[in-house]
């Protein structure tokens, strides 16, 4: 900075502010890589600076502050990076990997580092150096006839929307919850989901470029065909389909990703089905399943629990000041005041006015049969909770669900648990009862959403806690571990995990699964330099 205040001053002030009850003393320390002494690390940093330039290596406590930030419990300082390095292109990624192999420096790749509820940019174990790919931020191709896009890791959904607007392209984006600041590559690689008919992001992914630990550049699918032009048009290529092994994975570093974009429909109509009782979730699920199997409802159906919704725009202390979890009746009353039920089911119809008019009565009557009130813009226009999902289901950009993170107060704190199950009503009843039992035992509120993607049911549970209070953070950690364990005993495992519980969840997927992953890892990254511990793979 040329005047005003220096980067170091900014970082120092930031550290002082962030240190006020938000982080433990341990969390403020920078951790060196395991088994690497300080002098060797200093030499590594010099070599990395020679590759990317001085200003793109962050290797002291002050300059790494942004990379340490997360909303999950970390009382023992187990997710603290040693630093960060930010390459500008594939050649620099390859050069960094060569250094990492030479010194056995563990690298934790991120795209934008906004993995909300799962640890943001922080690594699975302390001492790893963040490989920050945000500077690789180009939309490399947008084929307006095919509706395909090829992007680098640093491209956010906001950037793609701006590009669509600027070029007046007839396509929609499909966003995850925190779209504006999140990378399309990062979310897709974590197998994140969105809200339009293109909401299964990995399903809509087509072709990727991966830099392997030894510097090899692999283009999957049709990407390696000489003079080929089908990379973003055909997913499967020839022979074993490889893209999957680079998602939720540490087998390589994805530097380009192709996606299919949703054609903008001429007409769009969002719905909310209001259901009064907690127990209604079972019937709603059973009504929803056939519509997702036959695609009469084309987007994933979100069944939002009232407290999940209310926590976006409210603070806990404004609703409940007594000890223990908030009683159901209190939540129900507040929901009613906001025109919500205990479950509020969101879906939309897309097409023409005629096709929507033909489909709507069929779906409407099915939900009404189980007591749901089927509501639309006619009844709910302007209701912030309706408007939130109405925006998401057309790919609208919003950060409103960030509100969940400060439910307990200004310090923030939220960690997500997302077990999957068959999309059957009997599963919802069991999962909801178990989640309430465990969360209430530890003093936390059950704030859920269920999603019927196709034949599966995602149960999204945000465990909101007070990160400024170590005792509360410890309870959150114990509560999450108990939930994962007890859900696992019933056969319900998570589809994704916070960096703090990756190994615990991996155990539930069994020894053979872990062994195969370990063998692939050993073959592709024998020095284990790419994200050790990611999804429980060393």
């Amino acid at each position, binding site marked *: *900075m040329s005047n*005003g*205040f220096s*980067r170091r001053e*900014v*970082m120092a*002030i*930031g*550290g002082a*502010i*962030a240190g006020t009850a*938000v982080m433990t003393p341990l969390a403020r320390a920078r951790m060196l890589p395991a088994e690497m002494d300080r002098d060797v690390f200093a030499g590594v940093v010099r070599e990395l600076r020679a590759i990317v330039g001085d*200003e793109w290596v962050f290797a002291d406590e002050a300059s790494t*502050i*942004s990379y*340490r*930030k997360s*909303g999950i419990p970390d009382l023992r300082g187990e997710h603290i990076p040693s630093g*960060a390095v*930010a390459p500008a292109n594939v050649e620099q990624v390859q050069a960094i990997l060569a250094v990492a192999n030479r010194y056995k420096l563990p690298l934790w790749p991120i795209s934008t580092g906004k993995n*909300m509820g799962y640890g943001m940019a922080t690594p699975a174990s302390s001492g790893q150096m963040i490989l*920050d790919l945000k*500077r690789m931020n180009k939309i*490399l*191709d*947008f*084929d*307006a*006839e095919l509706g395909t896009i090829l992007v680098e890791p*640093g*491209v956010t959904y906001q950037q793609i*929307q701006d*590009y669509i*607007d600027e070029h007046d392209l*007839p396509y*929609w984006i499909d966003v995850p919850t925190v779209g*504006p600041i999140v990378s399309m590559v990062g979310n897709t690689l974590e197998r994140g989901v969105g809200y339009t008919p293109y909401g299964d992001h990995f399903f809509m992914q087509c072709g990727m470029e991966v830099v392997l630990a030894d510097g090899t550049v692999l283009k999957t699918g049709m990407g390696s065909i000489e003079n080929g032009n089908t990379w973003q048009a055909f997913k499967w290529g020839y022979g074993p389909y490889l893209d999957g092994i680079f998602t939720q994975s540490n087998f390589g570093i994805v530097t380009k990703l192709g996606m299919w974009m949703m054609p*903008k429909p*001429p007409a*769009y*109509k969002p719905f909310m089905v209001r259901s009064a009782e907690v127990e209604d979730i079972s019937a709603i699920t059973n009504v929803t399943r056939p519509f997702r199997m036959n695609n009469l409802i084309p987007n994933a159906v979100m069944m939002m629990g009232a407290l999940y919704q209310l926590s*976006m*725009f409210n603070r806990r202390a404004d609703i409940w000041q007594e000890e223990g979890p908030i009683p159901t009746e209190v939540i129900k009353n507040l929901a009613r005041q*906001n025109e919500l039920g205990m479950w509020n089911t969101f879906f939309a119809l897309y097409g023409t006015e005629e096709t929507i008019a033909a489909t709507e009565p069929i779906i409407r009557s099915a939900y009404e049969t189980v007591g749901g009130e089927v509501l639309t*813009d006619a009844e709910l226009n302007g*209701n*912030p909770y309706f*408007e939130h999902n109405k925006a998401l289901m*057309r790919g*609208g950009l*919003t*950060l*409103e669900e*960030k*509100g969940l993170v*400060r439910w307990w107060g*200004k*310090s*923030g*704190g939220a960690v997500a648990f997302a077990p999957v199950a068959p999309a059957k009503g009997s599963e919802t009843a069991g999962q909801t009862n178990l989640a309430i039992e465990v969360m209430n035992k530890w003093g936390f509120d059950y704030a859920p959403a269920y999603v019927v993607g196709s034949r599966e049911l995602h149960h999204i549970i945000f465990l909101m806690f007070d990160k400024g209070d170590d005792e509360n953070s410890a309870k959150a950690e114990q509560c999450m571990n108990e939930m994962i364990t007890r859900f696992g005993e019933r056969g319900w495992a998570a589809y994704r995990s916070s960096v703090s519980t990756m190994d615990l969840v991996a155990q539930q997927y069994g020894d053979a699964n872990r062994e195969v992953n370990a063998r692939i890892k050993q073959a592709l990254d024998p020095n284990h330099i790419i994200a050790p511990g990611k999804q429980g793979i060393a």
Partner: protein
Amino acid sequence: MERHRESRWGKARVAGLGIVGALAAAALVAGNAAPATAQATYEIEPREPEYLYERTCGYCHGHNIAPIIRGRQLPAAVTAAIVRSGMGAMPAFKPTEITDQELQALTAWLEASEADPEEHGA
């Protein structure tokens, strides 16, 4: 509910595609294709403070999720530190997302900014 409708729902920030009517009026996709390949180059620097505010800060601040920060003469150095550290529930923003140069301009602009009566704090 009326309280929320009036006081908590600030101006819409959903980018681009608007209301149902606008969608219904949109041309059918097949007849509205842009040039076959649009090669993009995204110039990240320097982005103007208003542009950054609208596309990052303004999704929460003044939009029911986080406190209002315009028109409060917040010291630029403190704001910059909070952006980098991510105080409380706020995410941290790295120099790779908002450069030092951009951050300095953004925080100076915020310090000097007028309050926007359409914004709603939280």
